[in-house]
């Protein structure tokens, strides 16, 4: 936008390719390291030697932490990918499920599900969260397309803010009247992956997989959209169809992520920007790396949250905010958010 940095493009392709290999290697190491940490670290620390001792206590801990690790990685990958797609599609550096009203939609649908339809199990209200997120995403996009010049970044941000404000006040209205719902809701709305086993992950896996596939094949589409709507159309893209595909990917990914863990902020916002610094502005690289580093950041945040304030855990949604905000501030100060 206004803060666009002047960069020297001459050295980019070569160094970009070289750093892609390095970045990929680093990413693999990071995923392995953080997964290992996630299995070993917690209120009961486990040493690698104990892990294979085969005692009952050990297998109990492992049975809880391995699915949690898988949920954390999936959640982070979905959020990172969704964030990158959103930023590409809306050409809005601030695009994030939290800012575009997705989380508020999920929250409101959750509350409706809890009060009106009496959902009480995770596997039931997960669908409400998913539906709410999906409807909110589509609604925000449609609202932003009102008026002459279509869905510009500023209008999207405002539509998202409007949606969030309205839905949040309706949510509070319901919560003020119903204490029981508040009890369930307040534990959900921080965003947590504690106590998640395989079943929600398996339930949501098809949607997340389709979303990820759609997103990953859209790299070229996003690259073209970066040039602007008119230019993209001039280059022969069916921009409406392209937008629909990317939009569907976003709905599936962010809806699935929110259903899986509740609202988790900042991952979708900062990961694509950090990735862009490392691998350049080609979406063919941004998308997979956002996925990978989203997973690493989210799981790392969860691991830190388990031990930072003993004896209680700090939920992953809180930790991503705590870690994300300083990075966000630093990026703004460097003018990074302008570079789209």
């Amino acid at each position: 936008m206004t803060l666009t940095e002047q960069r020297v493009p001459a050295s980019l392709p070569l160094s970009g390719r070289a750093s892609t290999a390095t970045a990929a290697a680093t990413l693999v190491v990071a995923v392995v390291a953080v997964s290992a940490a996630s299995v070993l670290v917690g209120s009961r620390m486990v040493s690698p030697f104990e892990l294979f001792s085969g005692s009952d206590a050990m297998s109990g801990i492992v049975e809880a932490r391995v699915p949690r690790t898988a949920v954390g990685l999936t959640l982070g990958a979905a959020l990172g990918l969704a964030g990158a797609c959103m930023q590409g599609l809306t050409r809005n550096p601030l695009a994030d499920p939290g800012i575009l009203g997705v989380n508020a939609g999920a929250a409101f649908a959750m509350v409706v599900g809890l009060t009106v339809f009496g959902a009480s199990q995770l596997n039931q209200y997960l669908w409400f969260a998913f539906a709410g997120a999906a409807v909110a995403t589509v609604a925000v996009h449609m609202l932003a397309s009102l008026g002459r010049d279509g869905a510009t970044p500023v209008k999207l941000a405002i539509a998202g803010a409007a949606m969030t404000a309205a839905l949040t006040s309706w949510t509070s209205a319901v919560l003020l009247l119903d204490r029981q719902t508040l009890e369930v809701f307040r534990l959900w709305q921080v965003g947590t992956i504690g106590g998640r086993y395989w079943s929600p992950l398996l339930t949501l896996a098809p949607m997340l997989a389709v979303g990820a596939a759609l997103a990953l094949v859209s790299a070229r589409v996003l690259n073209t959209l970066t040039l602007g709507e008119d230019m993209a159309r001039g280059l022969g893209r069916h921009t409406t169809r392209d937008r629909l595909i990317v939009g569907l990917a976003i709905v599936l990914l962010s809806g699935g992520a929110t259903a899986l863990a509740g609202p988790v902020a900042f991952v979708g916002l900062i990961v694509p920007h950090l990735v862009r610094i490392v691998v350049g502005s080609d979406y063919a690289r941004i998308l997979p790396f956002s996925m990978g580093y989203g997973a690493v950041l989210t799981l790392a945040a969860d691991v830190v949250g388990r031990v930072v304030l003993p004896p209680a855990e700090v939920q992953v949604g809180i930790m991503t905010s705590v870690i994300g905000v300083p990075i966000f501030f630093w990026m703004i100060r460097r003018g990074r958010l302008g570079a789209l």
Partner: protein
Amino acid sequence: MSVIEAPTPTDVVRRARRRPLNRHRLVVGGLSVLLFLLFVARVLLGDYTITIPDFFRIVTGTEIPGASFILLESKLPRALLGVLVGVAFGVGGAIFQTILRNPLASPDVIGISVGASAAAVAVLILVDVTDNRWLSLAAILGALGTAAIVRLVSGGVAGYRLVLIGVGMAAALNSVIQYLFTRADIFDAQLALRWLTGSLHQADWPTIRVLVVLLIVLTPIVAWLARSLRITELGEDAAAGLGVTTRRTDALLLVGVVLVAVGVAASGPIAFVSFLAGPISRALNAGRTTLLGAGLVGAAIVVAADYAAEYLILDINFPVGVVTGALGAPFLLWLLASGRTGRRSA
């Protein structure tokens, strides 16, 4: 030589200057009348009607069983508190939007109100204090602290950077509040929820007295500082060139923060009032900023929304913030549809 009827340059300039001035008088007058009518409706009507003669009898000291209590302990303080916090939010919001030159840069979007709520909720839940005076103090300190952080991190009041930092700050503080929520017992949590929504239910005379004194102190300061507002609107560089220092702009922002903080301390962050008041008053005033108008619009919104929250749905008394929040969204949509989201828009 014939007599030329053409107006002299002085006349042209004088007329051009008078037109906005007249319009401003008209806007302020109209809004005052509207606010007065809303106030009267809020005080006298509702599910318990008080006649005008009764009103004067009660106010001058006659005891009417039932009516006296309802008027003096509920309706009148709520209406007065609504006016006062509405003015505080409206003027505070308009100061922000004007200096930052962005209708999105209202205190509730860039984290100031959230900061106040977060501090109050933290004190409520962690220190387990339920005394309103301490909570209010915490809210004011929280707003000032948040404003200081946002201002220091962004390193200036220019452009989008401060808004972006503020939005990030708001998101982070929201998750702090959510974390506190999980640690609270359920009664505290529900009490905290009221702090987040904004409500006039707890209106009482001591709060009103403090608020009146504060507003009386702040008004001349705002009036004095606001003279530079016209120039600040031109942008930081132009303003500096015309002799308005950043320090003066900062002082005005600080007053804006204090206004919002005091409002939040008294009633909780009534959603979107500080966001709505500035643009509405501007649109009425033909695109010119008017702090007085913004204050009146803010007060009118709060009083009207409080009436709706209390009586619109039978047997359910929502806090006023629920109504203003639901009202803010359509307004934003109107902004979108009419394409007024640009920098210098209404």
